[in-house]
Every structure is written in structure tokens, then in C-alpha cells.
């Protein structure tokens, strides 16, 4: 049962808790500053310690600024829940056309009603996004997360889509470069992309989002190839890209193109085994 009032209450209490901790932290910071002033007066050793503490503090602040809160998980339809132990985070990483965090994907086998997993390769659920370290996530830009510029971890419950097929699948989407299509992210204009299936916007109250500028759009081609595939090549009139796969990728591949590419074509995928 969706209850936005409870959700709001949770958000408010969490925010109140953060504010309270921040206020206490500010108090501690003031006390620490006073203590550091005392150390400074005690000579060179004190000064060196001050420098170390300031550096440590700056590092902590930098990390806070880089990583924001995770994306909220959503209740998945029963068929989409991952079977136990089936989640695979492919080690494959591909660069974004504009740089920054690379793209990657993970997939899992959906759980069956009896609690087991689906037949091998029959249905796989895939989730793509930007990658920081070993975490799949999205970026706070293009309108998402108040443009905070931070990386937000993506829970597996926030599914991208499931594909069917025996051993081979392919999906194409046009999405913001942030990889986030939820609340407040910019809207993908309908004219962009080659015969691509646009990622449907998640249902939100927010109808006041702006249209994504072309530079903020990406075409993502991804899927799972047959077992034993060594490389996947994407070919078009103006572009050739190759994913070299390792066994740990389990055949998963992903290509990310700028959406301002000439879209009078549809890429061909060639699989080498």
C-alpha cells in the first residue's frame, strides 16, 4: 500500500535527525577549533597536528559532497524480485562521452512464485547506471536530486527492465546522462534516438520538469549475449565501439553514445565467440 504521508513523515524525521546531528557536529567543531588554537600556541608540533586534522577534515567533507543519499527503493512487481544469489554486477565499464563516472550494469534472474529462479537465460532483469567503485548509481544532475552533483547509489529494487530470450537480448533507451529517469529529472524529447524505446518516466507528481538539452542525453544499448561471447561490437555509419568481455561479465554488454549523433541509422551488433 502506497502511503505518501508515511513516506513524508519518514523523510522529515530523517531530515530532523540529520539537522540535529549537524548542529551537534557544529558544536564539536567549535570545541575542536578552540582546542586546535590551544595546540597552536604550544609550538611547531601543535601546528603540524593542526595541518593533519584540517587535511583529514577536508577529505571527509569531500567524500560527503561526492556521495549523496541512495535512490529510494521501490516495491517491485512479484515477478521482478531477484532470486537468491542471482545478482551479477558485471565488471565491464564503458566511458561516458563527456567523461566522469563510467557506465556499467548488473542483472539478476527473477524469482519464481515457488521461490526458485527462472530457467537459465529465459528472463533476465537488467539495471544500468553510472559506476563509482563497486556501486551502481545515478548522478544528481539534469534536474535529478536538486542538481546536487552527487552520486546516488541505486538499489537493486529500482529495476531498469527485464528482457526475455534464450541467450541473447538487446535493449536501447534514450536517457539523461545522469542515468536517472525518476522524479524531477529532465524529460527526454520524443524526437531523439534511432528507433529506440525510450525509458518510460517513473510516475511522479512532478510535471514541471524541463526538456533535456541534447548534450545531456545518452543512448544506452545494453543486454546479455550468449554464454561464451568474447566481444560485442556496435557498428554504425559514424561509429564503431567494442566491448571486450571477461567470463565474470556473464555476457553482459553496454554501449553509451551521445544522443546528438546522426540518428538516421540503427546500430548493428556483432557478437564474437
Amino acid at each position: 500500500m502506497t502511503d505518501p504521508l508515511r513516506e513524508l513523515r519518514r523523510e522529515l524525521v530523517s531530515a530532523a535527525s540529520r539537522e540535529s546531528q549537524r548542529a551537534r557536529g557544529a558544536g564539536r567543531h567549535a570545541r575542536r577549533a578552540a582546542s586546535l588554537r590551544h595546540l597552536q600556541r604550544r609550538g611547531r608540533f601543535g601546528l603540524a597536528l593542526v595541518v593533519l586534522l584540517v587535511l583529514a577534515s577536508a577529505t571527509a567533507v569531500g567524500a560527503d559532497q561526492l556521495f549523496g543519499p541512495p535512490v529510494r527503493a521501490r516495491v517491485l512487481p512479484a515477478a521482478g524480485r531477484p532470486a537468491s544469489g542471482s545478482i551479477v554486477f558485471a565488471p565491464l565499464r564503458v566511458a561516458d562521452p563527456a567523461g566522469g563516472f563510467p557506465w556499467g550494469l548488473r542483472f539478476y534472474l527473477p524469482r519464481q512464485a515457488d521461490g526458485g529462479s527462472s530457467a537459465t537465460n529465459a528472463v533476465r532483469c537488467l539495471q544500468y547506471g553510472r559506476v563509482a567503485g563497486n556501486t551502481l548509481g545515478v548522478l544528481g544532475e539534469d534536474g535529478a536530486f536538486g542538481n546536487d552533483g552527487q552520486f546516488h547509489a541505486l538499489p537493486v529494487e529500482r529495476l531498469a527492465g527485464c528482457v526475455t530470450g534464450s541467450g541473447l537480448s538487446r535493449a536501447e533507451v534514450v536517457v539523461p546522462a545522469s542515468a536517472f529517469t525518476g522524479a524531477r529529472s529532465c524529460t527526454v524529447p520524443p524526437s531523439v534516438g534511432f528507433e529506440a524505446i525510450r525509458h518510460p518516466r517513473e510516475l511522479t507528481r512532478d510535471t514541471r520538469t524541463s526538456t533535456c538539452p541534447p548534450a545531456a542525453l545518452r543512448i544506452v544499448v545494453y543486454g546479455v549475449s550468449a554464454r561464451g561471447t568474447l566481444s560485442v561490437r556496435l557498428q554504425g555509419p559514424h561509429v564503431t565501439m567494442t566491448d571486450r568481455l571477461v567470463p565474470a561479465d556473464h555476457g553482459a554488454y553496454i554501449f553509451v553514445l551521445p544522443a546528438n549523433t546522426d540518428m538516421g541509422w540503427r546500430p548493428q551488433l556483432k557478437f564474437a565467440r
Partner: protein
Amino acid sequence: MASKRSDAELLAASRDDATAFGEFYDRHIAKVLAFFRRRVPDGELAMDLAAETFAAALGSLSRYEPREGPPTAWLFAIARHLWFDALRRGQVEDRARRALQMQPLLIDDEAMAVIERVAAEGALELLDALPADQRDAVIARHLDERDYSEIAAVLVCSESVVRQRVSRGVKAMRVAAVQEQP
């Protein structure tokens, strides 16, 4: 379980105790939601404004001064300010929620139903404040949708008396809604 602390005590405690603000929210969300629901065309916008109101209240806790009035007056002053601001801009701001790093709420059909129900409950509180004869008449006419003649028969009075009670009751609710002094 709800405590017996006053609103002012809850706000004062909220600076160190996050659950106190949750309790303050529980007490007033229905009224704030009803306040906006009567002023905007749909429940989503009402929820949007209500969320921003509580976020703004949380963000300005340190500026709340009990000597300047009861907490509900302060809360509804924030609500009114946000409503006027939304009218002027043509959109609902989310500045307070962003400042607190709150996640956007996802509103689907089920959520909409909850919003409408709670907003209606908030509106029914105005009905409860009416004198019994006016409340009965308003409920019979506007909620049960009965004819004046039928209501007159049930209440054992003339049709004109029923009309008068309904009219006075609705007028009193309208005035209370505008003043919004819960």
C-alpha cells in the same frame, strides 16, 4: 504512542529529538493537507505544498519564537506564504526539501487515494466544529445528498429552517477555512 506534550514543547524538543517533529507532523498533516486541497486543483499539488510546508517548518525551527503565537499559527503562516508564493510563481517550490536533502515522493494512484482521504478528514474537522443542528443539516444535505423536504421530515422542522441551518453551517465552515485557526 502519542505523548501529551504541547505543540510548543514538541517544536522545542525537535531540535534534539527527531521523533518529536514526527509527532508534530502527525498532529497537523491532515489539516495542512486539507488547507491546500481546498485551494489547488489536485491532490498531488496539495501534497507537494504540504511537504514543503513541513520541510520549511523543520528548516526554520530555530526561528520559531513561542512568544509570537501558537505553533499552529506559525505553521499555517508558512503554509499561506508558500501558497501565495506558488500562485505568484505558477509552480511549487521545493527549496526547503532540497536544503534538507529530502527525497521526492512518488505519487501513484494508491497514494492519490490516501491524499484525498486524509485531506477530506482534515476538512471534516471543520464540520465537527459546527453546532450540532447545523452539522446534522450540512451532513444530510451535502454528504448524504438528501432533499430539503426529506431532511425536514427527519429533523422534524420546516424546509426553510433546514435551508437556513445548511446555509449558516456552510458559511461558518468557509470562514473557518479562510481563517484556518485549528
